[in-house]
């Protein structure tokens, strides 16, 4: 399996994602520089955490204009798997690949801690190896992770089974405890928690493998 990890100049979880995929899970992973016009011959794209272009404006507001995001959009349009983690989720939302908005945390402070999330649907390539209702311990680390959607969008997300993860202990005030969603076609997912920080039991939890491993499983099923 070939994963591509996008590197914006301010990405700082790019190496963590690369390490989790290549060293903890044993797959091929390569970096994709932010001014690339193509994502290259990869099976899935990860948009990692960090502060894409400094994010002194709204997080991800500048990243949506980067060449690589045009490439990610075409990749997604062809059905490629795209996972946005933390800042990557913010970039997906700003780029219009996922709906809604990520606001400042309700407490107006950065929050870093492990949280418990519940898998709400297994009908995505990112949770296909999970059980519905399964809880995962994953770290969060963000200042702007409070998910917001207007009433019609929230209703659509629910009726279309697109709320993928919900917080059991909501750390940021997200509407309806939403921690992760997917697009209509179900090949693009964004989440605020960091599965790549939970791919090694030595760090306290290996539950992130459920999500990364689901991607591998889905891709191998598709290849088969």
């Amino acid at each position, binding site marked *: 399996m070939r994963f591509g990890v996008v590197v914006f*100049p*301010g990405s*700082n*979880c790019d*190496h*963590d994602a690369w*390490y*989790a995929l290549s*060293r903890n899970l044993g797959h091929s992973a390569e970096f994709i520089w932010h001014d690339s016009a193509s994502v290259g011959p990869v099976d899935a794209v990860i948009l990692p*955490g*960090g*502060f894409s*272009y*400094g*994010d*002194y404006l709204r997080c991800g507001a500048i990243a949506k204009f980067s060449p690589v995001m045009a490439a990610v959009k075409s990749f997604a349009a062809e059905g490629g798997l795209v996972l946005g983690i933390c800042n990557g989720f913010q970039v997906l939302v700003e780029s219009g690949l996922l709906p809604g908005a990520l606001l400042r945390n309700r407490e107006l*402070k*950065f*929050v*870093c*801690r492990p949280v418990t999330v519940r898998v709400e649907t297994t009908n995505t390539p990112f949770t296909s190896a999970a059980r519905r209702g399964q809880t995962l311990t994953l*770290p969060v*680390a963000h*200042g702007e992770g409070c998910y917001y959607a207007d009433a019609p969008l929230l209703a659509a997300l629910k009726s279309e089974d697109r709320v993928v993860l919900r917080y059991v202990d909501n750390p940021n005030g997200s509407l309806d405890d939403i921690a992760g969603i997917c697009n209509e076609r179900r090949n693009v997912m964004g989440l605020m928690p*960091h599965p*790549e*920080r939970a*791919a*090694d039991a*030595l*760090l306290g939890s290996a539950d992130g493998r459920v999500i990364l491993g689901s991607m591998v499983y889905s891709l191998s099923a598709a290849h088969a």
Partner: protein
Amino acid sequence: MSDLTASELDKVRSILKREPNETEVGIFTVMWSEHCSYKSSRLHLKKLPTKSDRVLVGPGENAGIIDIDDGYAIAFKIESHNHPSFIEPFQGAATGVGGILRDIFTMGARPLAVMDALRFGRLDDAASGDRNRRILEGVVSGIAHYGNCFGVPTVGGECVFESCYDGNPLVNVFALGVFRHDEIFFGRATGVGNPVIYVGAKTGRDGIHGASMASSEFTEESKQKRPNVQVGDPFMEKLLLEACLEAMHTGAIVGIQDMGAAGLTCSTCEMGSRAGTGVEIDLALVPKREAGMKPYEIMLSESQERMLLVADKGREDEVFAVFKKWGLDAVTIGRVTDDGMLRVKDGGVVVAEIPNRELADEAPLYDRPHNVAPYRPAPMEAPEIPRSRDLNADLLALVGSGDLCSKRWIWQQYDYMVRTNTLAGPGGDAAIVRIKETDTSVAMSLDGNARYCALSPREGVKLMVAECCRNLSTVGATPVAATNNLNFGNPERPEIMAQIVETIEGMADACTCFETPITGGNVSLYNETLGEAIWPTPVMGIVGLMKTGPPVTIPFKQEGHTVMLLGGLGACDSTRFGGTQYAKVVLDKMWGLPPALDMDYERRVQSAIRQIVTEGHVESAHDLSDGGLAVALAECTVNGVGAAIEIMSELRPEVALFHEGPSRILVSTAVPEAVERIAREHNVEAVRIGVTMKMGLRIDHNSVTLVDFPVDRLRSVWENALEEQLMPQHV
């Protein structure tokens, strides 16, 4: 304008053999400031041990470097940003983080961890509580802002409240990075004819004279110094990090140094001085943020996120290509010469010409008078210690006090996990960060105890070094090297200078005993506001090495296991009880001397616990420090497993529970015999004091129950105390 004394100015004249001009006076003023030249402390700093088999680079470079085997090394250092953090807490603290990170990556190391030692005035002070809360919130969000965006985990630290920091908070930031031996770079301008290249942010008028501001006391006038505080841009720093490391790998760079205190002045003359060369630059070529800056301003600007590097002549383009990739300015502003001079031109016209070596290394050296007793803020004689009416209430007061309560509110704002190396983050005895490329992990701890040092600088600092090493040993790491931050008042006062000298001498003894040479650090003097000095506040940052593996943590894990006190119950007389947290929180008094330390016994206790932990005989371990046995026990119960404890002791109850005698570590174990055997081998005590149990913490003393609590009550007081103290008072 000049802060040089008359005799210093004479020395300048004799070096130059003429009158200095305005720019030259400015250059000498910052280079010979206390902050840059250590002119009051240098004489005594020489007493510190600085060598061991592991020390690759000692004091004098941007950071110390330690060999960690397998071809890898770590660079680490601590630095203060006290004065700026008082004037503008958010930016002051943020740029403190930025500055120390540059010290690490300018040597070629990738920063792996940051820790912060913070000291503020009391939050519950009627007059200054509001301001102290504001400063704390600003400092914490400044650290979070910078470290989180840069992408370095903030893995620990300490936060202490004393009235002496009311007008003078302390922000000491420690950073540590990792690299291979062959990736080490130095700040040396070698190779005559080589280009001198400026990279990073543009130069503005911010921070001019920051180094000299940090070398004077606070007065009413200081409030006008806000423009002296720099503004940090962590995204720029992140770009600079990546670009510098990548440029270093081209092989085209021969020397590199960050522009920190005293900016372009310090980086040019230090790089030239270390290499024995001259450096010639033209200020007209320096990227500037605003027009019309005078040479004086450009040379003294402390604009952040800038570096100076010297490249191999002819290979500049390789360097420029890397910086262009990262979208950064990189401009050749001069060259290395063979005449040993720092020659500054502005559009071809020479505006300053000073011999590098004299400027960098011939700063005045003062043997400040110190032939008096160190200033003590407390009496020696113990007062009548009243019999406690309610030890339950005393324990609650202690675990809910500012110094001892959980600091989660602070560290939850720091990304302490980024880079996925944090095996043990904030809240433990020591933080542990793995080195992915090897089987080695680095444990680190920051410790200060100004209360002890105020009572006796010499004994206090020994206790601090011992505790810092004990923190590392408790997680199974062997302490190997240290960095120090010396925060004191005005060294021109003999009773303050005496504190400094005693502290350095005590530190030298302890660091020799524990085999933790000092590889660098920082001295911050003139921490006085309106004539009030802070207590002597040395802060130690000590690192230890261990094999990577699951960490041993503080909380009890299962009921029915034996609770043991390695090192024994300890002893304490009334004089030595006067520096304890019990005396502070419950009695609101301070007197006497800090606890007595037997360094040889301490060493044996530490080697015993290292063996016990490494061989896997315990499921929890926690060193005793502030608050003594009872507070340590309370901290072990935060995961919901309590203990029934039975102490048999001659000591009166308050002292038995709360004395702070060192050399003690609390463990829980399923194999007490193994712990006892190892303790015997090291000739130290190991006392069985109880057994873990569900739900409660009960402490009996000579068969009388003194403390009895449900653990969730203790936990909620401990967890919520800081947030409650930070909430606006509803009166």
